[in-house]
């Protein structure tokens, strides 16, 4: 199946089995390896990307379902300029091993578009689907709360 979608602002087309996971198409066909595979069953959030703005687990999305959609990955979030949430993650020390970080940035960016000044509780709800096994949650929450609070953007 030829699947056409907009990826990070560019129109792309991929010849792929329709049930291929969006995650694999991004990483293997489009060589966008920023999205990580953690669990492969929608538990961990390392593969989080946005489809038409909404964060999703890309390991659970068959690529046929993004035909005609707008997909954004961590590569698109940081281009052309570093996103405020990425800058904040650096400033606040929000990343340790880094596997969960791209997914966290995608979830956080979606939250900040809806709610530029979230409470810590709102951040924890928005990021509940992103697991960090370095258990660096507090710095992540601080980073997202502070991302648009001043300076970082």
């Amino acid at each position, binding site marked *: *199946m030829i699947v056409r979608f907009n990826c990070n602002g560019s129109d792309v087309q991929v010849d792929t*089995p*329709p*049930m*291929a*996971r969006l995650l*694999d198409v991004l990483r*293997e066909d489009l060589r966008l390896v920023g999205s990580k595979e953690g669990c*492969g*069953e*929608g*538990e961990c*959030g390392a593969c*989080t990307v946005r*489809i038409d703005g*909404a*964060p*999703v*687990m890309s*390991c*659970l*999305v*068959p690529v*046929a*379902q993004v035909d005609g959609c707008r997909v954004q990955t961590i590569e698109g979030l940081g281009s052309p300029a570093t996103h405020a949430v990425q800058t904040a993650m650096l400033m606040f020390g929000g990343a340790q091993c880094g596997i969960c970080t791209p997914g966290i940035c995608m*979830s956080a960016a*979606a939250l900040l578009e809806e709610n530029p000044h979230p409470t810590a509780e709102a951040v924890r*709800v*928005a990021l*509940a*689907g*992103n*697991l960090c096994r370095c258990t660096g949650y507090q710095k992540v929450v601080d980073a997202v709360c502070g991302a648009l609070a001043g300076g970082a953007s």
Partner: protein
Amino acid sequence: MLRCEAEVFRPRTLNDALQMRADMPDATVLAGGTDVMVYLEAGVLKPTRILDLWGCQGLRGLGFADGSQVYGAGLTCTDVLQSVQAHPLLRDAAATVGAVQIQNRATLGGNICNGSPAGDTLPVWLALNAEFELASVRGFRRVPAATFWRGYKQMDLQPDELLVSIHVPAVTGNSHFRKVGTRMAQAISKVIFAGRSVAGREARLAFGAVGPTPMRCAAAEEALVAGAPVDEVVRLLEEEIVPIDDVRSTALYRRKVAGRIVRRWLESLPRG
């Protein structure tokens, strides 16, 4: 990497979807993928044909008809959370499904037709006296939620039928939803409860994850309507549920928690 070479059919209209369903009763029905993709990846499902309803029009509405609220089977949990019309019990349940990324894809119909006894939204339909509208090329029929789940993952759903909507009559009373899992998000339930009570007239005590299907506790409901003491209602429901020991919890824990949830809720209600 998922290697699934199944042929995928993507109807745009309900009529097309029903015709395809009639032509291929063996096809796996796909909506938001949050269950099906897991089964495919794990190799427990090996379909040759998939009927993908994600892009099918007319399944994502929320409106009123004949005095009932009508929820499209393709509504996602996020759709429910963003709707001011959705019943508070359903909103509470939708908020506990996975996390944001799952809520953005997981559909009401998918939860119902996956038929897991631990489906987070399922006791809500029992508490609200919901009916499920099933469609096929032969026509439409309605099945009460109370009789839809017949056994473990056994549904009153013919191979040529699709669930198209959920009808909720105008109901009243105090209501309460509670999910108990290992953590707030991304957890499969140990116990789920949805309850509704109209003092002296009607009671619904519906549970998930304490038996082979989502279930109501009829004897405890009758006792509650009759004004029995909370102790008696709790004793009856603890007898009616049939929880098991499994990887997520124990039967003993589930029975204790189920009783405790209902006790706390009933004791918080005005008596009368």
